[in-house]
């Protein structure tokens, strides 16, 4: 007999069975969930509990159905996922020949210095964002045959990546993932994932914006390393060095975009610390350039502004409402500097035509 309505006891019995079955089938998923929690009481409690439960569940193969499902999904996804040509059209030409590195232009170029500042990389005093497509790169090889990697977290995914993908006119390999960083490999291990993200691609340059999620304490073994302490810095240096090793392999040139000034003073302080630490590590990498976004965004006096007037007095929204991410319009202010850097890294036509970064040029 069918009953549309059931008593609450029956509901709780149904949910209790579901909870039990879910906890058994998802033993591995729960362990991963606990490891990814922010450091705190919930994580301290959950990690050992879920680890022990996972060990116990493994003994009688409880995680097998989920693993089997994941394997099936991976096989299925291989057949149904976007092909390089379909999903991310910019990556279509994965077999494009890399630009010969030996032909890198002007050895005096700013980008060849270990740490270049934005004001140096960028054409000084350029008050206007470059409209996408307004000033194409002039290269010795077709732009469509040039492949670059966009790497990082949501600082790359929001604002920067769309503007770069529209504005640079080159093939792009998406190697960014929101909500990630180098500090928490248990959440997302960049050292493991980055090679997978660029597998099969043949990029010549890498542009990276990473670190917004790293201003937090981390667990190293049984110790909690507090953000900003020498121990945390040493831990992060090690992670960053390993990551830079991946970015710069095959002599790839890298542009590291620093964190812009943030609205929250506490967060801005953390990001300032991150910027200083990253810049210090980058000194050991002559092939990595540093782009400070603050001058390009007009934060000359270290005062945060979400909107800024352009030369005509029209208000431009530089930063998203969260006071962290850049808007497309804000990210466009970084485009001239990035183009200039790319111009210096990539082979030039025999008679190099100067590229102006201002619109209408």
């Amino acid at each position, binding site marked *: 007999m*069918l*009953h*549309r*309505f*059931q*008593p*609450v006891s*029956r*509901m*709780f*019995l*149904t*949910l*209790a*069975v*579901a*909870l*039990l*079955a*879910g906890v058994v*089938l*998802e033993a591995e*998923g729960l362990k991963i*969930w606990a490891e990814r929690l922010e450091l705190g009481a919930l994580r301290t409690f959950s990690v050992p509990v879920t680890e022990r439960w996972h060990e116990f569940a493994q003994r009688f193969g409880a995680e097998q159905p*989920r693993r089997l*499902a*994941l394997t099936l*999904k991976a096989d299925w*996804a291989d057949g*149904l*996922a*976007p*092909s390089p*040509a*379909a*999903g*991310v*059209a*910019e990556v279509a030409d994965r077999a494009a020949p890399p630009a010969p590195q030996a032909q890198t232009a002007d050895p005096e170029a700013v980008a060849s210095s270990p740490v270049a500042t934005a004001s140096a990389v960028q054409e000084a005093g350029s008050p206007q964002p470059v409209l996408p*497509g307004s000033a194409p790169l002039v290269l010795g090889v077709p732009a469509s045959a040039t492949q670059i990697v966009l790497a990082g977290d949501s600082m790359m995914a929001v604002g920067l990546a*769309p503007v770069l*993908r*529209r504005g640079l006119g080159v093939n*792009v390999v998406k190697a960014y*993932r*929101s*909500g990630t960083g180098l500090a928490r490999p248990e959440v997302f291990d960049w050292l493991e994932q980055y090679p997978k993200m660029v597998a099969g691609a043949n990029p010549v340059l890498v542009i990276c914006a990473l670190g917004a999620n790293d201003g937090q304490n981390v667990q190293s073994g049984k110790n909690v390393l507090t953000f900003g302490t020498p121990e945390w810095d040493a831990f992060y240096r090690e992670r960053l060095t390993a990551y830079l090793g991946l970015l710069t392999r095959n002599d790839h040139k890298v542009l590291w975009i620093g964190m812009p000034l943030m609205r929250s003073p506490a967060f801005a302080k953390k990001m300032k610390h991150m910027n200083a630490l990253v810049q210090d590590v980058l000194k050991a990498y002559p092939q990595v350039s540093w782009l400070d976004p603050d001058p390009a965004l007009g934060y000359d006096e270290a005062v945060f*502004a*979400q*909107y800024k*007037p352009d030369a005509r*007095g*029209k*208000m431009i*929204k530089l930063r998203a*409402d*969260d006071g962290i991410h850049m*808007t*497309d*319009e804000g990210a466009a202010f970084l485009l001239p500097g990035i183009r200039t850097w790319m111009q210096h890294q990539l082979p030039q036509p025999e008679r190099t035509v100067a590229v102006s970064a201002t619109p209408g040029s």
Partner: protein
Amino acid sequence: MLFPTVEYALFFMLALCLGWGLLRWHRAHKLALLGLSYVFYGFWDWHFVPMLFGLSCWAWLCTRGIQHGRLRRLWLILGAGGSLALLAHYKYTAFFLQNLADLASGLGFRPGIEVESPMLPLGISFMTFHAISLMMDAWRHKLEDKVDFADSLLYVAFFPQLIAGPILRASSFLPQLRQRPDPARIETGRALLLIVVGLFKKVVIANTLATLLVDDVFANPAAMSASQVLLGIYGYAAQIYCDFSGYTDIAIGCALLLGYRFPLNFDAPYVSASPQEFWRRWHISLSSWLRDYLYIPLGGSRNGAWRTQLNLVITMLLGGLWHGAAWNFVVWGGWHGLLLAGHRQWEALWQGRDCAWRASGWWKWTARVLCFHAVCLGWIFFRAASFGEAWAVLSRLFEGVWSSDLAPGVLLCALAGIGLQFLPDRFLLRMQLMSMRLQPVLHGLAFALALVIIEVLGPSEPAPFIYFQF
């Protein structure tokens, strides 16, 4: 705290145990739900919990003022004005100042206005609409009894609907709060089915479409073929439907398990054969709110054809602005206003004439296709970050190359997101009946298995609900 997370599952189990455990003490039951709702909101940012509490108190105070009988109009103006002022402060200050500065610069002035938008509290539009609904229902004498303080607080903050609706009417929800939920009448089968369907729509369809198709198409349409762009537009239509209706399905299911009933918010909107029908099926709680509290007070259809059409356009323009403080949302709202007004004119044209073809099957499907594509055109402006981006997407449709290089996975998701709406009503009913036949142990196992499958099928990269930003 997002619905498809372990944290929410734990929180909800606690809410169920506390809610039903304290049922004997009705007031304690409601206070526990209220406290849990504040905890739920505080998980995102506890700094805004006092604002939520303050808005609820303000709504209660003004409602009592309206119910008291003296100076009713003043209380209503104060109450609605205060609520809208709060919404305007958080959501529209920067938009207003930016446009003021742009206007001044266009006229040759340099006003030196500092523009900055405050951090937008999650779900502020929804809680403001709840507050206004409370006062308006009191004004219209739809609330029989004096509004209880705790009830009005819980009405505004009840966690399943707090962030993204559905928008409840005070006149239908407050009576539910006055009575104890009946522990013998829980729609467990329907509730669990709604939760599973909602999670599938959100985690599998919407998230997959967002991460594998739509974000790429709108980020750089110039790099896409025309067919990819078209699929991206259809994909966004499917994504936003699955994202938002998935959220409300879960919200309705959770409320049912707690013993409360929420209204239907989506009813297969893409089967609509006219803009009017679309708005009867899409975000029903918002469209009926706009109808009752904006369109009808403006005069509705009482003052002639021209004025009716103007009222429709004004209502939809403001509805667009409610979605976001940007001109692309205004254009989206205006487009729907024009569609509604145009459709009304079209209906008037054929009224009283003998036109059997309008009842034919082929015309119904033609109208459905036309209506769907008109809605999709609006979605381009809704999704794009700027007019330039919207134009780039549109122009790519006409300038791009047509090819068959479409990814089968995302094609399947887009088809599922749109096509599932054409399933007959009896399909869901049959699934519900099947779940009712199951014994609790089997039912629980089936529910758990469905959750595991959804977790496995969803992309690893999480995507927040689209309507959280509104």
